[in-house]
């Protein structure tokens, strides 16, 4: 299937810290097709950022280690590549936008220069041409090009994030990874930034891996969505399919816990319990301590990936027939 | 009310244990601590440790190089250098501790007043601190000792005065951070109660930086008194102050190098231990600890 842009198989990433080994990502499988927007959803600590950093091999080492797995980008195995080769890919074929715009830009360099850098490096432009390109990108993201000579602190959070987007898209990457790009922003700015991303994605024909904890954002922007819990994917489906017909108990719990505008409810229904301690994960299905459908077997067997129908997969013993629904 | 007090107590005790645990992990800091303890013990038991008295002259045995009877040699009046260094630990530690204590108390009061009352008082005090900081502290100490006259006590006060701005700043910062919290709670503040609450909170809040600053400050004070004695201010022989021993040895450097070398090594070891311990404390007391 030449349509697959990114294919992650059996990824396992651990952080070796003083307090123990943190199993950030375990048995992770994920696929992203060309031109698609895939939402990666999970609560804080689920391992989303680690997954993203693994793709461009920027997991901080120490203390992080990619233990095993395969990440295929257009058929090429990224984890086997040397650092030199990865550098040619970063910012060029695969770009990343980070979560906190207040700290992601270098305070002592102008925003224009920070965009020019990427362009000069990957597209071998000279300074003049790079400046032109940088100005174009700024205009594209809605920032007056004259402001290229300004410093990050002179911009608001939303504008800084746009600069981040400009930087990431400046070399026309095939894959854009956005790690919670709007989480740190006001709701109104969120909408603007998301719209911008949507527009640019279509224009540049970039595939997008959008990491978020906000299902609302997913509904707006994404084609497909993967739900992540405690380091692994528990459900993967097309957006409509997930919202209309969620399969995994965790997904159902997430959808139920969103307050409804129509219904008059006295109490919210959160998922009981807390995210597990990553140094001491539950055996068997990682969700079982919090699962309303859990049976004894769930504490022993690790669920396999079950394909329910076209483009709808779930990891749950219920769908393996081992547990009553 | 009682429950929160008890909880605070256990939390504090737990915090100190945690600090100790972190400090223990720092091998270098532990070395410094051990050395420091040895120095303190030497100072306390100098009479038992030193082979000779510190003012025992023996004019038939002047400027002897290190030998079996005088492990570090003798100076130009036949006094045993090792013994003088051992007794010198008392002077150095005394000056260091008294000077720093003085700085902490006076600086702390000034800083607390500046932070607590704010306004004009704050301005005045901080301006004075700025002025003091504009004069390199050794020069200020020199000027003060020139005015006060020499002698152990004056030197301690002079050094204490010249280093108090740092503590004033630390305490003021602590007070301000508390003031901002407490005022929110204590909307109905009764004057005296306010002061007591703040006094009970300033100390824990500023304790960490004061401990670090203080440890490093003792090192700096010891260097200062050595320097002052070296140029003839401060402490004079026969008191076995390491700096004055160095000054003595300066003129003998060509013929009797040992007279100047060993006291300097003593200073270096002491300062090293204090610095390393101070660094270790700074890391162990890192704000990451306080949740």
């Amino acid at each position, binding site marked *: 299937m030449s349509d697959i842009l990114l294919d992650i198989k059996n990824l396992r990433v651990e952080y070796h810290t003083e307090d123990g080994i943190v199993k950030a990502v375990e048995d992770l499988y994920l696929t992203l097709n060309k031109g698609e927007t895939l939402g990666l959803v999970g609560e804080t600590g689920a391992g989303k950022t680690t997954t993203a950093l693994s793709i461009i091999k920027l997991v901080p080492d120490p203390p992080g280690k990619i233990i095993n797995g395969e990440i295929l980008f257009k058929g090429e195995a990224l984890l086997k590549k040397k650092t030199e080769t990865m550098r040619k890919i970063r910012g060029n074929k695969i*770009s990343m936008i980070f979560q906190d715009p207040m700290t992601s830009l270098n305070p002592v360099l102008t925003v224009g220069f920070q965009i020019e850098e990427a362009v000069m*490096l990957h597209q071998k432009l000279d300074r003049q041409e790079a400046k032109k390109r940088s100005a174009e990108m700024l205009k594209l993201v809605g920032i007056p090009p004259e402001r290229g000579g300004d410093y990050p602190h002179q911009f608001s959070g939303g504008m800084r994030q746009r600069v981040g987007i400009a930087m990431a898209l400046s070399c026309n990457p095939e894959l854009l990874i956005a790690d919670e790009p709007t989480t740190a922003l006001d709701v109104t700015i969120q909408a603007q930034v998301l719209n911008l991303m949507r527009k640019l994605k279509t224009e540049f024909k970039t595939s997008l891996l959008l990491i978020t904890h906000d299902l609302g954002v997913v509904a707006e922007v994404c084609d497909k969505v993967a739900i992540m819990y405690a380091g692994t994917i528990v459900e993967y489906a097309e957006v409509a399919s997930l919202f209309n017909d969620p399969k995994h108990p965790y997904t159902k719990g997430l959808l139920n816990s969103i307050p409804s505008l129509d219904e008059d409810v006295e109490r919210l229904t959160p998922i009981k319990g807390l995210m597990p301690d990553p140094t001491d994960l539950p055996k068997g299905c990682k969700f079982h301590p919090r699962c309303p459908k859990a049976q004894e077997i769930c504490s022993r067997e690790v669920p396999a990936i079950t394909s329910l129908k076209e483009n709808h997969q779930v990891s749950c013993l219920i769908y393996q027939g081992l547990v009553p629904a | 009310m009682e429950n929160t007090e008890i909880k605070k107590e256990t939390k504090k005790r737990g915090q100190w244990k945690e600090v100790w645990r972190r400090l223990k992990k720092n091998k270098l800091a532990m070395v410094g601590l051990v050395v420091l303890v040895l120095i303190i013990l030497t100072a306390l038991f100098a009479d038992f440790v030193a082979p000779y008295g510190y003012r025992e002259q023996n004019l038939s045995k002047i400027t002897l190089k290190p030998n079996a009877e005088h492990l570090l040699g003798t100076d130009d009046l036949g006094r045993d250098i090792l013994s003088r260094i051992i007794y010198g630990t008392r002077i150095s530690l005394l000056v260091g501790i008294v000077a720093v204590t003085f700085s902490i108390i006076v600086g702390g009061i000034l800083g607390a007043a500046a932070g607590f009352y704010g306004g004009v008082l704050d301005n005045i005090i901080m*301006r004075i601190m700025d002025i003091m900081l504009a004069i390199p502290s050794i020069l200020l100490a020199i000027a003060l000792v020139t005015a006060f006259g020499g002698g152990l006590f004056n030197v301690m006060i002079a050094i204490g005065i010249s280093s108090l701005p740092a503590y004033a700043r630390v305490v003021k910062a602590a007070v301000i951070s508390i003031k901002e919290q407490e005022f929110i709670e204590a909307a109905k503040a009764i004057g005296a109660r306010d002061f007591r609450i703040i006094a009970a909170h300033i100390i824990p809040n500023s304790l960490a930086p004061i401990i670090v600053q203080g440890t490093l400050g003792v090192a700096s004070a010891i*260097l200062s008194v050595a320097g002052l004695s070296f*140029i003839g201010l401060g402490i004079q022989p026969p008191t076995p102050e390491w700096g004055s021993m160095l000054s003595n040895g300066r003129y003998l450097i060509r013929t009797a*190098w040992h007279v100047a070398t060993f006291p*300097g090594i003593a200073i*270096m*070891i002491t300062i090293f231990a204090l610095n390393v311990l101070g660094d270790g404390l700074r890391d162990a007391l890192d704000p990451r600890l306080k949740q």
Partner: protein
Amino acid sequence: MYKYIFRRILLLIPVILGVSFVVFTIMFFTPGDPAQIMLGERAPAEEVAQLREQMGLNKPFFVQFFNFIKNALRGDLGRSLTTKRPVYDELMSRFPQTMQLAAAAVLVAVVLGIPIGILSATKQYSVFDMVAMVFALVGVSMPNFWQGLMMILLFSIVLRWLPSSGYGTFRHLIMPALTIGTSSMALITRMTRSSMLEVVRQDYIRTARAKGLSERVVINRHALKNALIPVITVIGLQFGYLLGGAVLTETIFSWPGVGRLMVEAIRSKDFPVVQGGVLLLAITFSVVNLVVDILYAYIDPRIKAQYK
């Protein structure tokens, strides 16, 4: 930008006035009668009394202070009690030498300290790092006057490579400069290292790497500038320490600077000289800090922008 510079210069004036007041007050209350010292112990009492009147030593404190300031502004800092020459001349004839020493020491501290600090940070926990850090700790712990003596012992007496005292050539400058500079160098090395380690942990460094920049570019272009900002302030403050160190070190190396003059003046109770010397060095220190502050504002765009 100019507003900032102007404001800072303006703020300097009250500080200098304050320093003058403090120094004058301290000297004022120092025991010893300047007139007596000037004329010598055997001088008859009436002569001393007459000189006191002449020197205005009987006027009230604030009048004397006011006169002091008035005269100082004209460059008149009184006369040395021992040599009878104007204090100003005595100081100024030696000031260049002290500055030369201080400048050389700063150079040593910065040119050696910063690169070693950077290297230590990029090779954290390596052998180089450990050794550098131990050296730095030792360097900070050595009293500089002792270090000077040890250097003389080694290089002048044992090896006979360098002169132990005097002034004039580069060979005379090396040891004193190294003596004063080493502690500063040690401090700057440690500060640079910790600042670099701090900066390298920041998000924007991760962003730079994610753009595909080589590690060398990330360090040199992105990390360095940010890391050096706090170090520059420390350099300024270190200058004060250097000036203080000069006082002790000049004595050891017989370096003809302000420091040595002051030490002799202390011994001979020549108060005007001590007063003038402290004042001069304090003002120098303040000016240096001012320059550093301006430099700092220039380099850090966040500060620069505040005063545009």
